[in-house]
């Protein structure tokens, strides 16, 4: 097992957060752990360069360790850690000492495989961070270097320094039993089928094959208690090449019906330049199946499951479940940002007061302001509309209140409007606006 240890001796400048840094590092290394260096808690509490005390561990199993370490070092330097150093070794202690106490002239210190004990031997025992009383005991007996400690046998260490010294003795011998990374996760389920005697062009036949693959992959996912939040179909083409079609279900699931529905919709859009001689289905991302804690006394509890499934189905078919986030932008049209919501929102139980449901006419904006022809009259310097012509003809206005003048957007998209709230002769309440920058009238919306 090859480990890469990254160490930053100085306080990072303008560094990204741990989460952001971890996400960046994970793009280059399969597994990454950001951990505080053991024994440095006091240093952090004393206000020393706490951020720089952290170690970043990367799992280099099965990878070229040196290029990986250089790549990660480059990434760290680009994110506020210009003095970062790295150590590469088979044991955590050797990698850590190589990174922290290695050659100051070199940013990367690599310990050859099987030479960890030899590498540690010339370093003082303090690099192993012994407890203060043990450290004093070692100094009192003249043991200064890791090599001196490693040269002792186990019984001697136990008799002279007690059982507490054994872990330190093991570290000095390059015997570090820390498990920084758990066992590697099992590969995500996948299935494939290839054929050589014939080729397929008919989508229905392709779907027949996909159906088998989906059943197999979904079964594997269910056995693991997971659902896929993304999967990809790969069509191997007869004359070489492949076409990949990714799918993103609105919620993580392992339901073959949902998958087939998504695939069926996807096959209507995908263009295959050649006949197909094989299909592979792989899961890109999986999440544990979630069960939501509900309230038995909730009137909608029993139907929440079917409601969520129905909403998920709708979201998979070109619809968005949204909630508004309203800013203080002066222009109503630009005030709302619609945030996409998950299907699991159906489990939410919003608390509404008795006054929240009182009906009131609210303004509904047209998707885009509609240009209209307007006849106006003068009212204290403002052109006030008296009638306008929309797509359905002229409309007399009984009353027009306003204008409400809004302007701004100097730094992005300038705007200047005079808004009028008008009552038409048929009783409808509409909002007319004069774009002062273009001197053009528009119908913005109606109160409904």
């Amino acid at each position, binding site marked *: 097992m090859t480990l890469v240890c990254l160490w930053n001796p100085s306080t990072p400048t303008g560094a990204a957060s741990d989460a952001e840094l971890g996400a960046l590092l994970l793009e280059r290394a399969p597994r990454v752990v950001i951990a505080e260096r053991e024994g440095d808690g006091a240093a952090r509490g004393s206000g020393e360069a706490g951020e720089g005390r952290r170690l970043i561990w990367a799992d280099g199993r099965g990878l070229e360790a040196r290029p990986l370490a250089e790549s990660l070092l480059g990434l760290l330097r680009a994110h506020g850690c210009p003095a970062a150093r790295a150590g590469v070794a088979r044991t955590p202690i050797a990698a850590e000492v190589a990174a922290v106490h290695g050659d100051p002239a070199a940013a990367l210190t690599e310990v050859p495989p099987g030479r960890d004990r030899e590498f540690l031997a010339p370093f003082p025992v303090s690099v192993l961070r012994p407890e203060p009383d043990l450290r004093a005991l070692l100094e009192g007996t003249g043991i200064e270097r890791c090599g001196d400690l490693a040269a002792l046998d186990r019984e001697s260490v136990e008799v002279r320094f007690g059982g507490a010294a054994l872990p330190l003795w093991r570290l000095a011998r390059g015997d570090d039993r820390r498990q920084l990374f758990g066992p590697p996760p099992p590969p995500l389920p996948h299935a494939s089928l290839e054929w050589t005697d014939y080729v397929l062009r008919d989508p229905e036949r392709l779907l027949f094959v996909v159906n088998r693959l989906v059943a197999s992959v979904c079964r594997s996912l269910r056995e693991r208690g997971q659902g896929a939040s993304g999967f990809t179909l790969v069509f191997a083409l007869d004359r070489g090449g492949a076409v990949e079609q990714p799918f993103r279900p609105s919620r993580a699931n392992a339901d073959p019906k949902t998958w087939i529905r998504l695939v069926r919709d996807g096959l209507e859009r995908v263009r295959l330049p050649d006949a197909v001689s094989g299909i592979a289905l792989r899961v890109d991302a999986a999440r544990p199946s979630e069960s939501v804690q509900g309230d038995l006394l909730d009137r909608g509890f029993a139907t929440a499951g079917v409601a969520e499934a*129905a909403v998920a189905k709708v979201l998979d*078919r070109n619809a968005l479940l949204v909630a*508004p986030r309203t800013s203080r932008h002066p222009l109503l049209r630009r005030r709302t940002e*619609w945030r996409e919501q998950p299907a699991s929102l159906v489990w939410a139980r919003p608390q509404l007061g008795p006054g929240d*449901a009182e009906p009131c006419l609210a303004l509904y904006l047209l*998707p885009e302001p509609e240009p209209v022809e307007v006849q106006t009259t003068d009212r204290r*310097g403002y052109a006030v509309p008296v009638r306008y012509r929309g797509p359905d003809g002229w409309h007399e206005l009984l009353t027009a209140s306003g204008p409400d003048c809004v302007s701004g957007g100097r730094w992005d998209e300038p705007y200047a409007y005079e808004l009028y709230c008008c009552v038409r002769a048929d009783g409808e309440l509409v909002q007319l606006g004069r774009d002062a920058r273009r001197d053009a009238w528009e119908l913005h*919306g109606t109160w409904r």
Partner: protein
Amino acid sequence: MAPLRTATVQAAIAQRFPDAVPRHGWSRGTVPTGVTALDGILPDGGFQRGRLAVWTPGAGAAALLRSTALRTVAGGERAVWIDAAGAVVGACWREGPLLLRPVAPVAALQAAEELARSGGFAFVVLDGVDPPTTAMVRCARAAHEGGTALVLITRTTSLASLRLTSRPLPLEYGWERSRLGEPAAVRAVKVRVEARASGWFASTELALPVWHDDPRMSLEPEHPDRRGERR
């Protein structure tokens, strides 16, 4: 057990545990709007579950349906508003009902059908689509299968068991006047609502307040408000 007693027990179960009522069970009930005058003109005192209703677009339609959706959610059930035209303004939207925005009218109809059929929603409103008759058939069937009160804001009225229209009364607007006596802001309006069903016609007049935007709240200092400036 006597029929009367059975009905009493069924009513008690339906009141206390609505989800325990079979989807195609003994009584589907209604989704009341919560507005007494409006409930009074509807055949069963609300929108019938399992039925398709149509409200012709007009002032008051969205306001009263939004209020009904909020009351449905406040009552512990689920409601969804399908905004096919993307016309809902975030500043006036209140959290409670789900808000769906399909990308196309066809997707909106499919969404209404799917959600109504699921049985997970007591009240579904589709706004911004004029469906063809075939789609109305599917919507009516979906509402029946799911026991959902499905309301379409559309001019297409075929196959609807209940048809509603609303129009504001032009001379019944309540204005807040400026110091000069001019109308400054609409405060309320009286709306006439008519309900039609087989062998049924009723109407009422409701006074509805009007929501107003506050457009002057954050003008940029570089661009002074031109209110009152002579041109």
